[in-house]
């Protein structure tokens, strides 16, 4: 597989580190109180995944290169990779 780093351009998959589902919204910082509703939000954010068979928005880091984190859409049914952001 080849992934395009938005800074360095297309590179071999072995230069990257995977960062998981990027479609999930991290709860904003500073909102964590002690209530249980909050717990639920965080539970869902950390533990639940859509894990789709098809387009998947995900994080990658060009860890052996410029160390940039970026997102791209990859089709999990074919591994076809889209443009990075």
């Amino acid at each position, binding site marked *: *597989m080849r992934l395009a780093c938005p800074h360095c351009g297309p590179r071999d998959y072995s230069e990257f580190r995977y960062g998981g589902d990027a479609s999930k919204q991290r709860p904003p910082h500073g909102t964590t109180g002690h209530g249980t509703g909050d*717990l639920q939000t965080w539970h869902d954010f950390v533990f639940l*995944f859509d*894990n789709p068979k098809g387009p*998947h928005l995900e994080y990658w880091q060009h860890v052996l290169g410029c160390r940039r984190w970026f997102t791209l859409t*990859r089709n999990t049914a074919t591994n076809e990779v889209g443009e990075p952001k």
Partner: protein
Amino acid sequence: MSKYSAFSLARHALDPDLPWPRAWRSPEPKASYDVVIVGGGGHGLATAHYLAKNHGITNVAILERSYIGSGNVGRNTTIIRSNYQMGANTGFFEHSLKLWEGLSHDLNFNCMVSQRGQVVVAVSPVQMDVFARRGNIMRLNGIDAELLDRGEVMKLLPYLDYSKDARWPVCGAIHQPRAGTARHDAVAWGYARSADMAGVDIIENCEVTGFAIENGKVTGVETSRGRINAGKVAIAVAGHTSHVAKMAGLRLPVESHILQAFVTEPLKPIVHHVVSWGAELFYLSQSDKGGLVFGGHIDGFNTYTQRGQFAKIRDVAECAVSLMPFTSRVRLLRHWGGIQDMTPDGSPFICKTPVKNLYLNGGWCYQGFKATPASGWTYAHTIANDEPHALNRDFSLDRFEKGNELDEFGIGNWTYKQ
């Protein structure tokens, strides 16, 4: 005459025209079943067998989208063991190993359960301590385990790299003599044949495409071969767990990742144990056919393609040659992938779901093959009684909400981390 034995084999040898009966029928689906099991892998088939055997429930269908055993039960590295240290895992996997020990008899199908022992090679004194903890827990739970020092490992596995050149030294090992391998396909076929004989319908080429859910209760499934009604529906689709559960509106702590596996040309017996390595996840055994069967880590990203990345293939070959330098001249025959249902803590689910009468079995990560008998056993219990067996009570969906993770390997709640 359907029982398999040396005698029946001889009779067929003498009379070549005597037809063998089918191992399992291929019936047309009925309109309705008491229990519909989605997924004809090891777990689905075992569940059907134990539903019939332990609970007398036989009006059961297994729906398999392809051929039975087409999933991970047919593509794993066949290691069975019960060296688990965290809470519920210990008893569950030991129960499984005990069932393995009697499985060929139970099924009247030789599953080639080979208790040749598993040796996990430690590469540092610290790792020896970590292994000791595991081994002690095993012993305290009536499970066999031995701690080996370097000299003992040299005797058992003379072909490892003990030279100064080795990147990591062999410090010792933990050994479970009762661990070993089983013939993966036979497990699927044996369970299928047994379930079929008990009256279970095994329906291949039948993909579940949706669930009929009324008032929060499941009443049947939609399939590529039409609607099938069901009193209860049990999911056991391994790598496709999220995909199928989503049809019932469930979002799960599961990600699907590819794990690759490898087999070499057949050789005369040379590796007599299951050998694993503490430097990196790597495990190798020799199949009865003679091929070295081995594997490593997941590739590390979500995918449903059963093809892996070559970079990972290199990692695994590097492990093989570094740990066992003789393998350098052995030729790789074939490599393939399977889609693993990875959970954040590495432990599975066998449980009820928020949808009534819908049950879930999944999240098996690297370990679902060895779990097959106990998984079927406890899942059948859960389905039959609408409540978990003592052995699978902790394999629940809400354990992350509760903070009740079972992190066997100590890698934290991060599915794709290796």
